[in-house]
């Protein structure tokens, strides 16, 4: 994928670039908001990673201009620690996701992966299928090998997130943001307890475990089966 990385701190930029290149992406770098805007409107890009604070034109300003110029690539906004306003402003300006700095690279990789997989807005799936599991999004029903599995609404949402991102890691913070709408980091690992309950329900009757734990990062459901 072609990824635009707009980050003015050279060390952080190099760290992200190296990581993305290792994953096989092509990274274009911009050090100012104006550079980022220029590259976004002239290059074909799959994803834009935009720092909130950039010289010349800040990230949110650049993002607004990009959206005004019909740049449609998904944008991941990097916001500073402890700034609630940044997140809200960024999402309002047209960001698709945000990540609070500093972050583990695996977290960024997971977000980039999820953004790349995002379907166009006009396509609304009504059914998801991963391996033996079928999820009916309209009837809110989950079947494994044709058998209905009764899930709590929250467990349903967890599984939905995993299935939408099959073969990719969904991190703990991604679950907290999407299932619980928590934009802070609680100390108790509620994701873990709920995943383990979901697993128990899915594996009932001694079936193979489908939800894989990626240590220190999150969870993944494999499509291969």
């Amino acid at each position, binding site marked *: 994928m072609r990824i635009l990385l707009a980050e003015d701190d050279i060390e952080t930029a190099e760290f992200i670039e190296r990581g993305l290149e290792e994953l096989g992406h092509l990274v274009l770098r911009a050090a100012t908001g104006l550079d980022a805007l220029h590259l976004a409107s002239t290059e074909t890009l799959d994803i834009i990673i935009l720092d909130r604070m950039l010289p010349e034109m800040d990230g949110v300003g650049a993002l607004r201009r990009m959206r005004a110029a019909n740049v449609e690539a998904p944008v991941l906004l990097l916001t500073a620690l*402890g700034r609630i306003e940044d997140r809200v402003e960024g999402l309002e300006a047209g960001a698709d996701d945000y990540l*609070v700095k*500093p972050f583990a690279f695996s977290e960024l990789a997971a977000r980039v992966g999820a953004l790349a997989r995002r379907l166009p807005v006009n396509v609304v799936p009504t059914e998801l299928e991963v391996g033996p599991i079928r999820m009916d999004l309209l009837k809110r029903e989950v079947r494994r090998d044709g058998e209905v599995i009764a899930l709590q609404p929250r467990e349903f949402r967890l599984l939905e997130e995993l299935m939408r991102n099959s073969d990719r890691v969904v991190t703990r913070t991604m679950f907290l943001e999407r299932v*619980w709408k*928590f934009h802070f980091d609680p100390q*108790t690992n509620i994701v873990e307890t*709920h995943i383990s309950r979901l697993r128990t329900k899915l594996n009932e009757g001694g079936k193979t475990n489908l939800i894989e734990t990626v240590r220190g990062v999150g969870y993944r459901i494999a499509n291969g089966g």
Partner: protein
Amino acid sequence: MASLRSSAAYRIAFAYAAVFALGIALLGVAVFYAMHASFVRELDASLAEEASALQEEYRTGGDAELAEAIAKREAVDTRDLSGYGVFAASGERLYGNLGRIAPQLGFQDLSVKDRAGQPDTGRAIGIDLGHGKRLLVATDLEPVEQIDRTVITLFVAGFAGVVLLGLIAALVLGGYLRRRLETLRLSAETIIAGNISHRMPVSARDDEFDRLAGTLNTMLERIDQLLENLRQISGDVAHDLRTPLTRLRNQLDAGQSILEPATPSQTVIARAVAQVDEILALFAAILRISEIESGQIARRFEQVNLSELVGEIAESYAPAIEENGRTLLWQVEPGISARVDRDLIAQALVNLIENGQRHTPAGSKITVTLQRSDQAAVVQVADNGPGVPETEWPRIARRFVRLDRSRSTNGHGLGLNLVSAVAHLHRGELTFADNRPGLTVAIIFPAA
């Protein structure tokens, strides 16, 4: 009445009125005596004149002439107490109608019975006619007494008027002082209630109250500035440490991906990452609290169904709490909603639940309740653990305060401080109560 007694303004005004009344009374008494003495002197002068006229009669005509003159005078005088008497050296009365025995010489007060038999006082003069013979001329004090009575009546009436006026003036003055002070007090209360930017009203009169208000405002300005500096500094420190810490974390992250998995060096780096993350979490909390305290987030409040939110959080936490060997119960009154920041209310409740778990022994029970009380929503988290002594309640919501017994547990000492900041942002408060046993913590804030 109690409020009048407990008011310095009224006390001062009444004391002033009382001193003023006392002054008037003293002046009145002095004037009265001076006037009385002056009348008596005048009376004495006319007595002396009369006596010397009679003495003259005696010198020219002897006893016969004097007796005739006295008889003539007594015939026209109808006053109750007046008269004349001439006495021999032996004290025996020779003529005249005064029955006094052995008169003294000079001016004197007489105490006699009048014609109606009532005791009365008079004034008299005794003079020596020679050879031990004495002449006594007396007159009634009634006219002086009458004037005295009139003066006293007038004075008492006047005094009552002055006291009444003084009382009215004291009430008005006291009320005025109180009103001026009350404006200052109410302004101070407004500031205490959290409206930090409120100031004392200053009028154009520029009197001492206005000058006091001005000085207080300058003081508030200064305190405000110091507080702002403090906030700025803690924010700045955290902010400036953010970039180097980000780099440090990135380096460690990169190191982790280079090293072979499951080696001792991996473990060391993983531990370092965990520690950096702890520092970052602390900074995140400091920065978040500063941001909340700045009050800007209040602009983004939206209507949130609190019943749903609290129920959801309790439900989500129950299994995790159970895995930690404690029980989470919840009781949520339906249909409560308010204009809030959903994320902050969630974080506050999560902090309270996590505190309840962290500071109680295994087997404890944690109860989350949401209820409406008047126009307020009450989010309450109670546990039946060891509790917190009441004397510590005011301290535990402060920044970085950790009770000695909790130093061994996790946490950075900002959890309750954040909850308190969230409560204040929502124009509410954080309260503590004894759950006997255990601690009850509640966030109370206005709800529609």
